[in-house]
């Protein structure tokens, strides 16, 4: 089976239209790569059948058909803001709203490659040799996606909506989002993975973010794919001196999801904040992987992740902070808290620290538990029914992280999805 699957992806890679030299890296990797398996540390605990049992077809620009009204219903930003829609990974100008804005350049990735847009040569610099099969597939099929370049401090947030919806359901979308925030510029990039139809497809996205000196990027993400979709997002971020990156990622939807954060600092006094929340219920599998590399001195990072599990939900948290020899004065804190609501849920977590410098402050903390009966008692003593109290406690647990969105419309949306998913669970506890 494994040979057939590799063959399948190799054929896809060989027949893909040539858009960029980086595709060769992906192709080469595909001929060497081993299928992900649980013996590999990076995939330990991750059930792989949901993604390896299918031979997904590559999505094309012609798949799916949407009307601008369909998109309007999904948006959280006002209509006059920039909103980019990627359908099955492909940039759809007719669905997007693209008012001209100074300091912002939005290009279809394919077009950016053809016209050699400024900074596009950085494509593939961070994802490099591709970590695994799906990274290689994405690289080999490079073409779909969007290129963003910011040269000023932008006040208006920019929205990016991914929709997976095709006539043939089992397709693989392979977007690559390349973000370049120039020195002293700033941007808020709201990213949504929205469900449109209940399709069994796979999202295999790679995002590369370059922050120049003093640049700032606020990056709230909401993954709410349909419950049959498979979702893999690999984020690569490189931060130059004094830059700030703040990511808040929610994983609520999809049958199987994996979010990878690869973060590296190239200059001092940069700060990064990664916040994450996952909801794993029914038969969902949610996983979060952090790979934070402190290779230069004087940088700080905060990683804070929480999860709620119910039904037969399963979650994997795998966080690694590596502090290299010269990265003195590093300050890194990692925490992971989990709430288990059901008998059949399972959480596997491994928060790791690897430290080769001595003048550092590093810590990690992990907790796993159920709802504190005392909290429940407190609320019930005040006349709140059990189901409502349970739901309230869960909301409170999640709300702390969701507040990091710093964008009320998105917060409201996330909380209402959470409420909708948790209400029936709380009622049956």
């Amino acid at each position: 089976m494994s040979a057939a699957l590799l063959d399948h992806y190799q054929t896809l890679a060989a027949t893909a239209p040539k858009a960029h030299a980086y595709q060769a890296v992906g192709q080469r990797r595909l001929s060497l790569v081993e299928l992900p398996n649980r013996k590999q540390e990076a995939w330990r605990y991750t059930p792989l059948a949901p993604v390896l049992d299918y031979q997904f077809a590559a999505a094309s620009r012609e798949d799916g058909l949407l009307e601008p009204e369909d998109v309007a219903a999904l948006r959280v930003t006002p209509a006059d803001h920039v909103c980019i829609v990627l359908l099955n990974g492909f940039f759809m100008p007719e669905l997007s709203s693209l008012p001209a804005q100074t300091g912002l350049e939005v290009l279809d990735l394919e077009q950016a490659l053809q016209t050699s847009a400024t900074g596009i040569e950085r494509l593939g610099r961070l994802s490099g040799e591709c970590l695994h099969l799906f990274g290689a597939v994405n690289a080999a099929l490079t073409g779909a996606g969007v290129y963003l370049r910011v040269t000023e401090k932008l006040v208006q947030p920019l929205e990016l909506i991914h929709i997976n919806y095709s006539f043939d359901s089992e397709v693989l979308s392979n977007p690559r989002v390349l973000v370049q925030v120039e020195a002293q510029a700033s941007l808020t990039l709201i990213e949504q993975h929205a469900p449109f139809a209940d399709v069994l497809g796979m999202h295999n996205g790679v995002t590369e973010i370059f922050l120049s000196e003093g640049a700032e990027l606020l990056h709230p993400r909401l993954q709410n794919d349909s419950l049959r979709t498979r979702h893999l997002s690999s984020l690569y971020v490189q931060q130059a001196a004094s830059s700030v990156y703040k990511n808040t990622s929610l994983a609520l939807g999809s049958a199987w999801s994996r979010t990878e954060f690869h973060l590296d600092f190239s200059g001092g006094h940069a700060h990064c904040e990664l916040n994450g929340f996952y909801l794993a219920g029914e038969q969902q599998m949610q996983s979060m992987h952090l790979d934070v590399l402190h290779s230069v001195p004087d940088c700080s990072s905060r990683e804070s992740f929480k999860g709620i599990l119910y039904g037969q939900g399963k979650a994997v948290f795998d966080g690694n902070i590596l502090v290299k020899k010269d990265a003195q004065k590093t300050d890194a804190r990692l925490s992971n808290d989990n709430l288990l609501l059901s008998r059949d849920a399972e959480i596997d977590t491994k928060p790791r620290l690897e430290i080769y410098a001595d003048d550092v402050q590093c810590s990690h903390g992990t907790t796993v538990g159920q709802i504190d009966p005392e909290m429940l008692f407190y609320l019930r003593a005040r006349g709140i029914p059990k189901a409502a109290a349970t739901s309230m406690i869960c909301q409170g647990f999640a709300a702390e992280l969701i507040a990091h969105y710093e964008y009320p419309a998105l917060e409201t949306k996330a909380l209402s999805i959470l409420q909708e998913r948790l209400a029936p669970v709380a009622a049956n506890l």
Partner: protein
Amino acid sequence: MDAVEQQLAELAKTGYEAGFVSNIESETVPPGLDESVIRYISARKSEPEFMLEWRLGAYQKWLQMEEPDWAHLKYTKIDYQAISYFSAPKSAADAPKSLDEVDPELLRVYEKLGIPLEEQKMLAGVAVDAVFDSVSVATTFRKQLAEAGVIFCSISEAMREHPELIKKYLGTVVPQTDNYFAALNAAVFTDGTFVYIPENTRCPMELSTYFRINERNTGQFERTLIIADKGSYVSYLEGCTAPQRDENQLHAAVVELIALEDAYIKYSTVQNWYPGDENGKGGIYNFVTKRGVCAGDRSRISWTQVETGSSITWKYPSCVLKGDDSIGEFYSVAVTRGAQQADTGTKMFHIGKNTTSTIVSKGISADRGQNAYRGLVRMNKGAENARNHTQCDSLLIGDKCGAHTFPYIEVANPTAKVEHEATTSKIGEDQLFYCRQRGLSEEDAVSMIVNGFCKEVFNELPMEFAVEARKLLAISLEGAVG
């Protein structure tokens, strides 16, 4: 007179038990490992037939296994065919004739630890037959233990005298094919300790290998089996604070603990094998598999370790908490300096209801030392109301060392509660300044801060051991700061 005769008889007997009576010089098997070596070892130790089969089974499995490479360790590959798997004690000709021939550095450490001269000779491997004081102490202890019904003997002896216990328990906690090093140990182990505490017995004294004189030079592939029957208690001490002379580079020991209902086993280790020169050359490779099963309800197993020696430490004393309300504990101080590397930690498997485990791990790295904590806490589906608290702290001294934490947490029961915290920091300059300002020398100040850092673990050690461990730590870190 009777007492003396009895002592002599005992002495003669122990000499025989260890498996060498005469012809000491010719008792080394040439290097290499195959079935014939295992047959030879088994025959030499007059083992029952089932043991030979057990060993051969382990060997066959070992051949198919691969040496694990997941640990955070770097070392030159071990050539298993270059090791001699059965060697009697080094002949008198090889050993130093007197303390004058012993490495002065070693003597200086003995001095600092306050070890009596006779004991120094024994530890340094000076060719004396035996230290009489120790022998008499050992035999007196044996008598007292026998009265209580406690069996405390070498594992070879146990195989001959108590085969039913060996058959019932050996390999039940660490199966012969558990891992690469455990399989190797199962195939070739030469000796070790066997302890059986009968029902409702509190072992009258702390048991220590230190008093078992028939154990010398069998440390390479040691196997320890401790069984605490219902309602019993035993505290077992392994190793000693003084650096011991040892000829073998590879150590692959296995320790199995079994605690039945209401039993409590407390296992303390101080490991201070030779760490090698400043580049780690010649140091001991310590690959140990230690595991205990809390088989009965309300049983308890507590591991305490102070690891300061060896160039490579690969060691994860674990607890399988099968019985309801059982308790597992792991307290560890690991020090790495020079080129030492340690990858150590624990595994706690919660199977029974209301099981509790506590993990406190303190890692100290200095110079170029690399110290990793690797731990697993597994809450099975049936582990109702299980609790775990883990704390691992690392202290870094110097900018070339490393401290790493690799905790694995798996929870499959919603009523289980797991907490894990880890911190890494260095000795604060403000802390040092504060102490120095009050007239403490820098060395004393560091020793005080480090001892404070390790206090929670030292508190778990038996008293005499704790005092020695404190001194040992101070010596281990001598000159690391400044």
